[in-house]
């Protein structure tokens, strides 16, 4: 008889690119210059598209909008590692993911202007609808992962969540299943420190979110979520593990929500402005730009040209989004089920005959 330690665990943290733009060259993922520049372009596109959304919202041209400001690296770095067969399960703050896989920006804007048609995923992609119900979609990713394995399909189910979602029961049920069935699943948690007004320390007493993976028997890692290269590398490793039968991974991307929760929120009510300022120094775009400049891949003139080009692209997306004709009453009914009941058909007629 004895009292002894029977098992011990450790949690890794991965950082490759620091806020000064310096890299650990041994950890640098094998990306070409073109790919590095593409990553930066996607970071910038996300930031500008986000900024445009906020200004459209202020003008009354978009509804309530959740900003991705500050979280671009966690979104772009992870999505950049995916291939087009992988399934994506977004939560509601993944503009950078949608842009990285070439989801039509006009559709994204339309969704946030209150048009369900914005969620219609193009046939070449597999993106589940934006999930407003926090954390429930990890289970759908588990189901798709199981389906993919059943069909010997090399697709991986990649699910995005926030720190708040780790408190939900479905988070635990899903990752528990991912462990039991050894599913090809990657859960990417953007720990942005705040679930509306509740801080990360009020979601869990655990020292890291990454360690939650251990209890499910899956791999867990924390990365600097503002380091696009670290996020990319951790995601690529997790995808490889998933595709080769090594099971699921939970990646905690430590980042910060620089903006309000949504345009309907005022974060000054509950958080310290000094904290926001401290995170400003860790900006994900700035450090990538410094890195590219250090490598002589980028300069001020490149920056100006790229910004101009991206702004033109945003103008086109906004024009396209706003040119779409308003939805009609039938759109409410037609996707309820494959065949409407006699009562639904009567209701549709009643609705069509009247006015909103």
């Amino acid at each position, binding site marked *: 008889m004895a009292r002894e330690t029977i098992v011990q665990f450790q949690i890794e943290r991965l950082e490759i690119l620091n806020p000064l733009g310096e890299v650990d060259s041994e950890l640098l993922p094998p990306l070409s210059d073109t790919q590095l520049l593409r990553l930066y372009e996607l970071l910038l596109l996300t930031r500008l598209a986000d900024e445009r959304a906020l200004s459209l919202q202020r003008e009354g041209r978009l509804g309530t909008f959740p900003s991705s400001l500050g979280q671009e690296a966690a979104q772009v770095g992870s999505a950049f590692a995916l291939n087009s067969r992988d399934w994506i399960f977004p939560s509601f703050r993944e503009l950078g993911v949608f842009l990285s896989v070439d989801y039509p920006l006009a559709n994204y804007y339309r969704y946030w202007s209150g048009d369900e048609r914005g969620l219609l*995923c193009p046939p070449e992609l597999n993106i589940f609808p934006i999930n407003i119900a926090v954390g429930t979609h990890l289970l759908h990713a588990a189901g798709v*992962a199981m389906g993919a394995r059943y069909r010997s399909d090399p697709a991986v189910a990649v699910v995005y969540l926030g720190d708040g979602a780790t408190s939900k029961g479905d988070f635990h049920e899903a990752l528990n*299943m991912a462990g039991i069935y050894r599913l090809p699943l990657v859960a990417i948690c953007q720990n942005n420190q705040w679930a509306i007004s509740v801080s990360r320390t009020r979601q869990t007493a655990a020292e890291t979110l990454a360690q939650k993976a251990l209890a499910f028997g899956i791999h867990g890692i924390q990365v600097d979520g503002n380091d696009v290269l670290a996020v990319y590398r951790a995601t690529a490793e997790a995808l490889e593990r998933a595709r080769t039968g090594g099971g699921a991974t939970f990646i905690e991307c430590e980042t910060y929500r620089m903006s309000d929760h949504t345009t309907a929120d005022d974060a000054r009510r509950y958080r310290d402005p000094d904290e926001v300022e401290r995170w400003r120094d860790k900006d994900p775009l700035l450090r990538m730009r410094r890195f590219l400049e250090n490598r002589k891949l980028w300069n001020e003139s490149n920056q100006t040209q790229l910004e101009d080009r991206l702004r033109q692209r945003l103008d086109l997306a906004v024009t396209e989004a706003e040119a779409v004709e308003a939805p009609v009453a039938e759109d409410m009914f037609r996707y309820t089920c494959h065949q409407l009941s006699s009562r639904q058909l009567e209701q549709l007629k009643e609705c069509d005959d009247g006015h909103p």
Partner: protein
Amino acid sequence: MAILNLVQAINQGLQQALAEDDRVLVFGEDVAADGGVFRVTEGLYEQFGETRVFDTPLAESGIVGLAVGLAAYGLRPVAEIQFLGFTYAAIDQIYTHAARLRARSRGRYTCPLVIRTPYGGGVKAPELHEESSEAFFCHMPGIKVVVPSTPSNAKGLLLAAIADPDPVIYLEPTRLYRLLKEEVAEEAYITPLGQARIAQAGDQLTLIAWGSMVERSLKAAHNYPVEVIDLQTLSPFDRETILASVKKTGRLLIVQEAPKTGGFGAELAATVAEEGIMSLRAPILRVTGYDVVTPLPLLEDYNLPSEQRILSAIEKLLSYP
């Protein structure tokens, strides 16, 4: 044709669905080696192996959420929740996701899943094992609700539910599992969803029931000119059959096991009031469970509509000229 009870008929339906369509997967708590706590899935794990028939961890929301993903991927999950009372933990997945995936994705993804679960009282089981909460699901656009009442329709409705392109809640009346036996066709067949069955023809009174109350209503009504409609599918329900019958009989009785207030009988009564009231010669009556928390076994016979309560309502309605 073999004589089967409900358990055997559902088991045969599952076996045939698994054999005919490799998209069909059966899973839930204790469904594999144990064959389900009521043995509904007995032998399936042995025949089809653990990729087709498997146990899940004890997580009802997880079971339904997993099914949503499998269905969206293109498979035909048939998930078992051990008792209806345990689906409450999964209502978020049912209503937030299964019911609206087709709509939220604008038709890109669909959710052809089946949730099988035993429901209802009369089996002297512990708390939460005898619930009759079908009305919850009938209030969810996008969800179909099916309740078999005989071995034959149990098999046919199950196969229809599995073939249906949308999510179906399939409620198995626990009290009838081994009570009813009849000849069931050996081959696979479909009993169409959305269609009621005339369980007994009659011209003086329309009695609507579903699930385990069909058996009890038939016992009460067999010597009376009562048309007993077995609803079979609650959502969407067969309005046409009900209205045609009421037009003929002029009297309506609804028998449900669930609490009265907000029960599915209320929807039926309101429909006949809206669309068939001119045919009525008497008030619409409901015989129901009471508005109480489902009691434990020593009190359950007070709550479940008895043959006598149904009979009294029939006689009262027939007394109207």
